[in-house]
């Protein structure tokens, strides 16, 4: 039932008994989540379950009232969001948030934290991952469609060569075909050395591309385990639809 946590192996991301209050609600309660190197982990649950809150806390936009987060062995407490990003955390938020006044190319360039010489190669990698971006490199962020913005946001998050990518609800408002395309990239990204923590409402698709999963319900971890196991348990959880 509990996640296959190898006691000896150091986890890339370790969220330990986290409690976060947000807007006078206890949004997260006693959350323990881990992500290892080279793996994709899904975070599923209904809207309001706390997935985005967890991501914001990992990135440092929300302060926990209890518990701790460590990344690559370092505690993240007291680190500001930009410091955490430079440590190797990539963040692609729900709602994309591409820079509206920058072009596609500039959105990618500005996110490169390495030296200027590494920029061309990284941008090429972005275009390889999402060829649609190469079609309109000069388009401004706000002019792109929802799907294009999503791809740009993911690619941008990868420009800092993160070790872990926090991907929050990439399927939001996208056509199913596009969702498939985007989620296919998750495997490619993991293969190239970046772990992925994927928050998704769309459970089936999320479980299809990840090895492990956590089910979040009203701010706590209700189920955790290998994706295959959860897929089965999911039939039971369909009951939360009320039907």
């Amino acid at each position, binding site marked *: 039932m509990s996640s296959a946590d190898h006691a000896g192996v150091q986890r890339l991301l370790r969220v330990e008994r986290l409690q976060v209050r947000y807007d006078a609600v206890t949004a997260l309660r006693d959350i323990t989540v881990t992500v290892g190197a080279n793996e994709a982990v899904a975070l599923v649950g209904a809207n309001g379950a706390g997935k985005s809150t967890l991501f914001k806390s990992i*990135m440092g*936009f929300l302060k926990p009232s209890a518990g701790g987060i460590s990344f690559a062995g370092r505690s993240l407490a007291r680190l*500001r*969001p*930009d410091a955490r*990003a*430079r440590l190797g955390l990539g*963040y692609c*938020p729900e709602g994309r*948030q591409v*820079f*509206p*006044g*920058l072009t596609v190319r*500039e959105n990618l*360039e*500005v*996110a*490169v*934290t390495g030296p*200027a010489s590494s920029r061309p190669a990284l941008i090429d990698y972005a275009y390889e991952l999402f060829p649609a971006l190469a079609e309109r490199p000069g388009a*401004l*962020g*706000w002019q792109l469609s929802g799907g294009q913005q999503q791809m740009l946001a993911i690619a*941008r*998050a990868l*420009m*800092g060569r993160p070790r872990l990518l926090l991907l929050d609800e990439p399927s939001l408002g996208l056509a199913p075909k596009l969702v498939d395309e985007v989620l296919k990239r998750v495997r490619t990204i993991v293969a190239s050395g970046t772990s992925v923590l994927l928050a998704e409402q769309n459970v089936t698709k999320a479980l299809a591309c990840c090895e492990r999963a956590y089910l979040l319900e009203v701010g706590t971890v209700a189920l955790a385990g290998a994706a295959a196991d959860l897929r089965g348990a999911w039939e039971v959880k369909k009951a939360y639809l009320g039907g």
Partner: protein
Amino acid sequence: MAILQLIINGIALGALYALVTLGFVFVINATGAVNFAQGELVMAGGYAAVVLQPVISAGPLILVAVAVIMFFVGLALALVAYFPLMRRPPATVFISTLLCGIFLQSLFVVVFGPEARAGPPLFSSSLVRFGPIEISQQSAGIVLVAAILILLQFVVFSRTQIGRKLRATTQDREMAQAIGIPALRMIAITFGIGASLAGVAGALLANQYFVWPTGGITLTVLAYMAVVIGGWGNIPGAVIGAMLIALFQVVVASFVSYTAATILLYLMVLWVFIVRPQGLFGEHAPRRA
């Protein structure tokens, strides 16, 4: 050809106004807040030039020194008037910068006295003739410096990584942090640049137009108006707005009194508000709240 002469004079004045406005619009974009002390920063630059005059003789060197000094003054302003009030409504920063402006004014009176002072001539004041038109070297120098700085800011903002980071920070501060940009540092730098530009403008105008403690307020209002005309937050628009205001002032003031020209200017800006509130070039690309 009198009108051409007026236009030339207007362009020289417009170049000064453009420098003042540029610094002003950068801070607006970075923080959403109006820096009401911008005019006093201009005066501060002028006073700095006055102080440096016995020490440095070369005009361009004075400009560089003033730019550097004013950069730090800008950082100080950010520390005192902006960062402590970041999470409050923008009106609060308006007031805090207003208070800083008054503070600076009083400081000027205490240190330099209430009378107007002339800054050092940064260029020779000889005249150059092009046919029926005379341009003083000083005016030409002002336009040249302003043009260089405007071009420089354009290049920096649109082609360099730091420029992109500054722009990203103004558009979406949280997301900028999420990709590793130290947003607060960027904002402080923006204040510094804004103050530098204001200071250079002050050093440039100090010789011809003098500096005095309360001279800043008209310049702040001017920058404010230029930004409204050009489109709130729109950088090229701000420069053009500044030029238009200068041209208007110079041309109209040759027909009517200076006072009447100023009143007409204010009324015209009010008219722009009503008829086309987004300015000539529209507001900057949408910011994320």
